[in-house]
């Protein structure tokens, strides 16, 4: 039993983004090999990046090569994706679960009359049907869904699937079928893009490591301790609600129920007591480390490893040790 899969790629700095490589990995498994997988890319550099699909054995690549796809709403892309899926006789569309992918999934599903799921961590095509597993309730539980009907659209949670092994092949690049989007969809304009306030590090929601700071840091001028540790680790910086509410860092840093949900490989909570509001935003991280002076803080109940003590001593020592082992 196998699927015919269209991978909707996403470009970052002109190359296939990591979540797209993970999508290719999942698509190859679902299709039972590269013959059943079609790559798709849209944007000004779509054609030049198309050959990157070939590295993983995907030969059939459809491109919508136009800079207009870089600055229009996701709604604009859905008709092209659906037309391409129909043209390539795909029954499954897979996209990385980034902001782009998560927005596209629902739109494409409604247009294609397909079942859909966002933030998928496991996919199985068995006698039981097309099954997907995904975290719910902020990672406090998981659900397994059967996506019925002839078509389905999935976005995959970042870091949950492996990039495929390299198996280079020649790529055939074909312009994508591109029906005109309805004129009503053309009004909105993206007027600017600025790097996020978190600075040079990776984005919070797709980082492999996140270091977050809380009220235990006592004052905004101490937040650099968290940032330096994050920098040494190549991690994104997060914060508890106490920190963003106090204005030490902008709301975009907030991890938690009313902020961002993160599920990195490693989450380090510095001076965070662990209110439920925060826990639901990070509990699905693979490994959690807590550094806090209060041994009874609830964060130690969800953490895998704990350091009880003065963060003002421990964090700089940890930063130095990380730098040392990484040769920085």
């Amino acid at each position, binding site marked *: 039993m196998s699927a015919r899969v269209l991978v909707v790629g996403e470009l970052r700095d002109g190359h296939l983004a990591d979540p797209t490589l993970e999508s290719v990995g999942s698509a190859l498994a679902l299709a039972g090999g590269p013959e059943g997988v079609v790559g798709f890319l849209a944007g000004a550099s779509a054609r030049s990046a198309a050959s990157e699909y070939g590295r993983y054995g995907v030969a059939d690549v459809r491109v919508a090569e136009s800079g207009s796809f870089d600055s229009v709403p996701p709604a604009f892309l859905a008709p092209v994706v659906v037309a391409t899926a129909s043209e390539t006789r795909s029954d499954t569309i897979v996209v990385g679960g980034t*902001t782009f992918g998560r927005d596209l999934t629902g*739109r494409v599903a409604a247009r294609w009359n397909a079942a859909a799921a*966002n933030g998928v961590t496991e996919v199985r095509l068995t006698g*039981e049907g097309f099954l997907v597993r995904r975290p719910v309730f902020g990672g406090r*539980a998981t659900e397994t869904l059967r996506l019925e009907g002839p078509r389905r659209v999935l976005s995959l949670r970042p870091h949950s699937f492996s990039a495929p092994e390299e198996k280079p092949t020649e790529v055939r690049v074909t312009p994508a079928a591109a029906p005109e989007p309805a004129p009503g*969809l053309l009004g909105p304009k993206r007027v600017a893009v600025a790097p996020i306030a978190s600075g040079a590090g990776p984005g919070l929601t797709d980082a492999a490591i996140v270091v977050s700071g809380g009220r235990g840091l006592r004052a905004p001028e101490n937040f650099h301790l968290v940032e330096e540790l994050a920098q040494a680790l190549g991690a994104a910086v997060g914060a508890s609600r106490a920190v963003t509410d106090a204005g030490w860092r902008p709301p975009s840093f907030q991890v938690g129920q009313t902020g961002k949900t993160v599920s990195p490989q*490693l989450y380090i909570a510095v001076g965070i007591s662990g209110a439920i509001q925060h826990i639901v935003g990070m509990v699905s991280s693979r490994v959690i480390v807590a550094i806090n002076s209060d041994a009874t803080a609830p964060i*130690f109940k969800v953490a895998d490893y704990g350091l009880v003590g003065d963060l003002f001593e421990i964090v700089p020592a940890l930063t130095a040790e990380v730098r040392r082992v990484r040769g920085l």
Partner: protein
Amino acid sequence: MEIVVCVKPVPEPETRLRAAADGRTYDTEAVKFVLAGYDESAVEQALLLKESIPGSKVHAVAFGPSPRTEEVLRASLALGCDQATWVEAPSELRPDPLATAHALARAIRPLPHDLVLCGKQAGDDESGLVAPALGELLGVPDFGFVVDLRWDAGSSRLTFRRETEAGEERWEAPLPVVVAMQQAWNDPRTAKLPAILKSRKVPIAKVAWTPLPAELGPTVPVRFELPPPRTGAKIVEYKTPGEAAEKLVRILREEAKVFP
């Protein structure tokens, strides 16, 4: 501005989750339902826009079973929404985000809707599918992960920001549009008692629910699982901060294998 805001009841965040008897979904027995967190942001945003644009109205719309769905519509009215429409779902109906989008679209189409506001996802199934699907079904653009939504009267456009992996995007959009809120920049208000009492007298319009044709590919819950309870942190013993750092890094590299 005619604003529609979509609301959903979800278990309150502190709820101790349990699998239902059939193991397919969670047990709703004795669970207290509240307005979903991001929906609360959407309602707050709708009310802020209404207050800043004379002649605006906010219409709350919900799809779901009795009594909790009616209760979150009442709660939305108490917060300041002007009208409410409810598509009542049969209590035995399994949750299905695309079916929800179709039901909401049916309810919204006959209403004036310059702006349809949603939360970016609900705190239970976190599907994040309803708002984009609603945009497609209503034939208008949709935007997710939106913060800082404002109305520019001069250009008759909404302005807002989105945080994506690429950075912080600034957008301008004419109406109509569907917007899914990331979070409110103002703390959502709480309802005052007189408003709560008054909201009880507002009639809630009802729209009949009709099942979707089967070829639309339903989503069927198969299993709901809770992780084994976390047993608590392994506390790293140390004498000096340097030893603490060294031990932790060694554990992360050798035992947890999360360190490059």
